[in-house]
């Protein structure tokens, strides 16, 4: 399945755009997504940390993704 991944902050610089498509097997998880992204974009591993948000909620690695999910990479936040 094809997951569209939104990017913000430094993740946008790392991906070279505000969203990218990632190909994942059916029943793929946010953990699988992170592995795939880190292998294509090794700079992700140099961040202090990053989270994956699914449908506007922080998601755990075990969370199973579907093509209908809104998925975003959340680098360390720094609002306020």
């Amino acid at each position, binding site marked *: 399945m094809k997951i569209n991944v*939104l990017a*913000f*902050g*430094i993740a946008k*610089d790392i991906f070279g755009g505000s969203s990218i498509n990632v190909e994942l097997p059916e029943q793929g998880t946010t953990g699988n997504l992170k592995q795939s992204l880190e292998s294509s974009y090794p700079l992700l591993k*140099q*961040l*202090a940390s990053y989270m994956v*948000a699914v449908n*506007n*909620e922080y998601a755990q690695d075990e969370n199973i993704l579907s093509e209908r999910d809104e998925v*975003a990479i*959340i*680098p*360390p*936040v*720094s*609002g*306020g």
Partner: protein
Amino acid sequence: MNTQIEISDKPLDIQSCIDWVMSPQSGGIDVFIGTVRDATKDKAVIRLEFEAYKPMALKEMNRIAKQVFAKWTVQKLLIHHRTGVLQVGEVPVIIAVSCAHRDAAFEACRYVIDTLKQTVPIWKKEIFEDGEVWVAAHP
């Protein structure tokens, strides 16, 4: 739960924020106003740029508001955050809390800004004379 939570690319209006939280049942209002500082670790800052993942940021701010109303007796809570380019002295964030008693107002206001800085998906880029950096991105 009486809240006003907004993310906007327009300059924030401090007076109208304070007017909104005032109420005859309140004895005290605490207001936190973030301002763009001219330096960070002794390095001159030219301007800041704020970016938000807006639907999720609003959802997280609402989650914080729910926690506040569960923890303290609060009349009204306002959170306004600005995005886009901000010059030194401009205001990225205003948090205002009105309560019958001042202790709750101080504690709730501080809880909101501390938690917002940890969980709300908003990012700040500092622009210097000789470069720029996404704040907190790297260890």
